[in-house]
Every structure is written in C-alpha cells, then in structure tokens.
C-alpha cells in the first residue's frame, strides 16, 4: 500500500509544482518508488518543471477515459530509477475528471508505488476537489505573504472539513535577510497564524529558477533549496530531521554573516 500525498496551496504561484517536482525527486533519491500525478488539467506544468515534456504520449484523462492503459501513460524518469510521472491533459478542462475517477486512478497505482504525489491546481473548485479526493495527507504550500497565507488558511479549513487525516505546512520562498530586518514574516509567525504543524521551510533560492529553466529538479543537490526539499522528504519518511531555518546569503554581507553563523 502506498501513501497518497496532495500538494496544495489555494493561491497560485507559490511553488506547488516546484515543490511537487522536488519532493517527488527527493523521495525517489531516498529509494522510494514514487509517482507524481499532475492534476492540473488544462494547465499542465509538472512535466516542464521535471524536463519530461517531450516524452508525453498519453495523459491522465486518457487513462480515466480508457484510451490507454496506465502503463502506457506513465513516464519513467531515466535520471532516477524509482520515479514516474503521470502528466495532465493540456487540451481539456477540470470537468473532464470527477473525484470518484481520481480515487479509482490512485487506487490502481497503490500496488506499484510507495508514494503517490498529487500536484493540485490553484483554486478551491473542481480541480482541487479532484486532487484531494484520494489523498491520505496534505502538504499546504505557502509563502510568507498575506495573500498566500490567507488562501492557505481557507484551504486548511476545507481540508479539515473534508476529514483530511494529516495536514502539514511548507513555507516557501523565505528570505532570511528580510526576516532578520523585520520586513518579512518569519516561519514562526506563519506557523502561529495558521496553527498547522510545519514540515519544512524552503529558502528563496536563485537555484530554483535555474533548475526550472533546465528542467532538472534540485532536491538533493548542494543548494540551500535542494537540501531543504530533501529534508522535507526525510521528515515525510518519519526521520527526525531538526527544523533549521533556511539561510541563503544575499550579497557579500549576507554571505559573511552566513560564514560567521556556521563557524
């Protein structure tokens, strides 16, 4: 039996897809058979972030409608032996699938994988309901901004009402330098406001932009964000990894401060 995790946020643009890609990659690196499902029908993106866009033949809707077998639609990521992607359809919309069909789809994958990771679309409509339907646990991604946190709170309320068994928070794009000078809410502030346990904080890291440009997820690489994502994966597996505040250096002074801190 596999664990089914949905990555959601409410607001768009906070890093759901990047988070999904990197957690999927991280779990595969840690030896877990992992499949990532892009549930954003009509706005397919997980494939490009993963750099697998040229290998799509069939998609999620094809599987649901019986146009192909599951095995034909799954793309194996050749860089990681345990990692697969089920891409979304680009030419359809959210109404092409319903929650019952999503639950059936997830059920069909249960025997072959340790982790099933659902990348949820933004919003609280049909697409969200589809993605959440078959999930055992939810990771709510937010950034330390008022709009993202407000939407995360709404999503948490909906997940609670839908009896989601486990909800954890990921605070993305934390700027340590801004937090230090008081111009950004700290991870503690966000946790206090949302009252949901934290599973990890990810620093705002240029390396993410570069990794997305190249279509190569950075989980496990020697970057601040890459390490943060791998730490989240370890915590998902139940390892006790201390929650450290992400520390990316911006400019010379920041780098010096970082060095001093490490010493």
């Amino acid at each position, binding site marked *: 039996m596999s664990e089914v995790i949905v990555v959601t946020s409410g607001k768009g643009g906070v890093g759901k897809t990047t988070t999904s890609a990197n957690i999927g990659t991280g779990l595969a690196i840690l030896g877990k058979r992992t499949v990532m499902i892009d549930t954003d029908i009509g706005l397919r993106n997980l494939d490009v972030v993963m750099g697998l866009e040229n290998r799509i033949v069939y998609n999620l809707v094809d599987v649901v409608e019986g146009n192909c077998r599951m095995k034909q639609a799954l793309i194996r990521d050749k860089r990681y032996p345990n990692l697969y992607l089920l891409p979304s359809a680009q030419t359809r919309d959210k109404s092409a699938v319903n929650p019952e069909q999503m639950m059936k789809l997830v059920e069909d994958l249960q025997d072959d994988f340790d982790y099933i990771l659902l990348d949820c679309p933004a919003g609280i409509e049909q697409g969200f309901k589809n993605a959440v339907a078959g999930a055992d646990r939810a990771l709510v991604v937010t950034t*330390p*901004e*008022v709009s993202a*946190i*407000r939407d995360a*709170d*709404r999503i*948490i*309320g*909906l997940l*609670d*009402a839908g009896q989601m068994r486990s909800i954890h928070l990921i605070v993305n794009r934390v700027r340590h330098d*801004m*937090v230090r*000078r*008081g*111009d*950004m*809410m*700290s991870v503690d*502030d966000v946790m*206090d*406001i949302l009252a949901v346990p934290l599973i990890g904080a990810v620093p705002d890291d240029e390396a993410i932009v570069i990794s997305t440009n190249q279509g190569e997820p950075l989980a496990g690489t020697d970057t601040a964000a890459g390490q943060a994502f791998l730490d989240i994966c370890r915590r998902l597996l139940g390892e006790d990894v201390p929650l450290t505040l992400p520390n990316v250096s911006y400019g010379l002074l920041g780098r010096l401060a970082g060095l001093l801190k490490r010493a």
Partner: protein
Amino acid sequence: MRGRRTAVLRKKRSGAIAARRLKFLLTADQTGIPPEVLAMLRGDICRVISRYVDVDASGMELRVRCSHGESPGEETADSPAVLYTAIPVRNLRLKGTIT
C-alpha cells in the same frame, strides 16, 4: 537626516504589520463577522479594559478558535467556538477608576 532616520526607526516593521493584518483578516474570514464589525468589537473591548489598566491597543490580538479545527457554523453544544483575546498591558497598576 536625523529626522528621517528616527521616522524610519519609529515606523513599525512591515513583517509585524503583515502578521497583525493577517490575524485580524483570518478571524473575520473564519467567523464570517465583517471586518468592520470586528474592528468595533475590538475597539469596545479595548476601551473597557483600558478603564482599569493601561493597555497597548495596537498589540491586541482577537481570534476565534473552533475546537478540533472544525469550520465555523459546525460547532456543537459540547464544542462551541471560542473567542479569545490577548492585550499587552503597559502598566498593571490599576487606574484611579475604583475610588
């Protein structure tokens, strides 16, 4: 130069402003009480308390917690929503109202 500097220092840091605005906003979202009414409730509570002790109204927190994370409107008789407030006190010495 000096005037500008102290103005910058006196200005509250934007991170704290964001946190305060959010707490207020989420309370309004969760309870369905319009922000305007919530502001009045806040003001009234502050006024009453400050009759007795010296409080810092800008640091006041007002939140509604639904037990077991239930959403508002789903409260039951044994687990009603709870409204709670925390107000920083500047001076705990009682004011001269009780004379």
